[in-house]
């Protein structure tokens, strides 16, 4: 039997060595890689070259890391507009993998990897998992979707390279997920936090006590989630829940991850250079200020991204993490600049709705926000599924629940919204990212 590893032992994992590189040396590597990637994009990507020329800027003018601010931004719309291969910087014969991310509107976006890109991706995923205290001997269930979505394969390659035993369940079929988790003695799971909540519910229905299983860690990402969700997950399943960050446009999962101190997410800065900018003006913001995360891929070959606007709102946390890593950290991402809903002129984030629901029930029921426009006025309805725990067969008690939800939402949001109690399982379950908002205002 393996002895239980203390967190201090785990942090000495050899694959984590680059996480502790001295800052001066890290900056040197970053500058050198930035210059290489800018030159490559200039030579190979027409859109990038023309934007540089508009600014009368040449790659040689990037002489320090601060000079990154001179470079033009890349937006998600650029990927869509150049669909499918317009931003590739490698000939197709050198591309070993394509992934596709569904855009919210219209065309999807395509991302490409050379062999080296896949290796870099694997190496950062290994560092993520090692930072979460996973190691050779762990049995890792990868319940992110496999396929065009980067989540499944990214986590898979990383866990395998770490030396763990990988159970590639992909998403879906919760009963089988729970059966295999139990039968195989799975020790860690990678999936979206919403999907794990679903597994918690389903395990309870099946009479499987997650707390009694060997499962000890969950690496959750692909969507924003809250501290209260973490508390709920950890208390219901007795695991340590880690937040992992990534996006296909940059590489997939593995751009950043929490360590065992859970004080923000370390960005693998030797490959991804983070900046925070004002989401409206694009001006860089100092550490400790909240703004939009902008990332530059420092080593990507097939599809270099220069100053990519992630739309994720966070800040770079000042100071060094207690774990000793020199890598800078970003705060957990609670919202995206394009998640913000404007209802009758009031800014609302779905995370606020979540906080209100948690406050009432202590657990997070399945919910959905439906926006409509009636007589020129925005209406917001929060649909909440009635679960076994919430259901009572007395109308008065259900009405009381309804009123408590209404009160909490009114209080948190500051505007009047409609609350609708709906039947269980009527809100569509997602295997990838939860679709929390249905906006019918424009239809």
């Amino acid at each position: 039997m393996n002895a239980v590893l203390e967190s201090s032992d785990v942090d000495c994992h050899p694959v984590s060595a680059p996480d502790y590189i001295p800052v001066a040396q890290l900056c040197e590597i970053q500058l050198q890689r930035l210059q290489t990637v800018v030159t490559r994009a200039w030579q190979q990507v027409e859109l990038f070259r023309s934007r540089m020329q508009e600014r009368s800027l040449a790659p040689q003018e990037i002489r320090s890391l601060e000079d990154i601010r001179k470079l033009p931004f890349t937006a998600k719309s650029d990927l869509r507009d150049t669909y499918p291969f317009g931003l590739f910087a490698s000939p197709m014969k050198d591309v070993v993998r394509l992934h596709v991310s569904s855009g919210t509107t219209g065309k999807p976006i395509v991302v490409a990897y050379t062999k080296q890109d896949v290796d870099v991706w694997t190496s950062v995923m290994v560092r993520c998992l090692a930072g979460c205290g996973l190691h050779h001997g762990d049995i890792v269930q990868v319940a992110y979707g496999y396929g065009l979505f980067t989540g499944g394969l990214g986590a898979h390659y990383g866990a395998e390279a770490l030396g763990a035993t990988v159970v590639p369940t992909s998403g879906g079929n919760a009963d089988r997920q729970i059966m295999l988790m139990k039968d195989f003695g799975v020790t860690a799971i990678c999936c979206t936090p919403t999907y794990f909540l679903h597994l918690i519910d389903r395990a309870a229905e099946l009479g499987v006590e997650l707390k009694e299983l060997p499962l000890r860690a969950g690496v959750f990402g692909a969507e924003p989630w809250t501290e209260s969700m973490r508390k709920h997950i950890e208390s219901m399943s007795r695991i340590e829940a880690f937040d992992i960050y990534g996006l296909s446009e940059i590489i997939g999962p593995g751009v950043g991850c929490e360590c065992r101190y859970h004080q923000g997410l370390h960005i693998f800065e030797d490959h991804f250079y983070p900046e925070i900018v004002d989401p409206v003006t694009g001006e860089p913001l100092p550490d400790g200020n909240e703004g939009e995360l902008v990332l530059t891929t420092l080593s990507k070959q097939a599809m270099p991204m220069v100053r990519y606007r992630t739309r994720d709102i966070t800040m770079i946390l000042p100071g060094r993490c207690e774990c000793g890593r020199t890598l800078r950290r970003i705060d957990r991402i609670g919202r995206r600049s394009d998640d913000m809903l404007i209802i009758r002129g009031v800014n609302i984030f779905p995370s606020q709705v979540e906080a209100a629901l948690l406050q009432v029930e202590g657990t997070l029921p399945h919910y959905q926000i439906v926006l409509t426009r009636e007589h020129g006025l925005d209406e917001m309805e929060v649909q909440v599924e009635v679960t076994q725990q919430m259901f009572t067969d007395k109308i008065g008690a259900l009405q009381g629940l309804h009123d408590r939800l209404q009160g909490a939402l009114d209080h948190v949001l500051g505007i009047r919204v409609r609350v609708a109690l709906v039947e269980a399982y009527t809100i569509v379950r997602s295997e990838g990212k939860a679709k929390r908002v249905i906006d019918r205002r424009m239809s």
Partner: protein
Amino acid sequence: MKIHQISLFVENKPGHIVAPARLLAKEGVDIRALYLADTQQYGILRMIVSDWEKAARTLETHGFVVKVTDVLAIFVPDRPGGLADVLEALDGSGINIEYMYAFSDVRGDQAILIFRFADMDAAIARLQAAGINPLASEELLK
């Protein structure tokens, strides 16, 4: 003496009662009594069925949220005053009726009252003291 009643949460929309009714029919479960308590938005479908365990299991496996609640069933003569006699037996006891419903057999001369009391055991004791015996489930479902 207590009868198992099953309750379902249903949205108040056309067609939402068909699915559970059809499921029970397929399983050969007979609905002996049914009451729908509703608000504008949703309702609670309360049923007394020939096999409550089978009914609850079937509905749950099809994704319904089901609650099993104990209720009392009382036979009363189907004539003016039948209900009043039972209620009077509870008068002054402070026992609260959470809800009740009734149905009568058109061919017979008896009506059946279904009660959910806040304190079921106190209600049973009080009724029995007044000579009213709640039905056992075999009597109700035979």
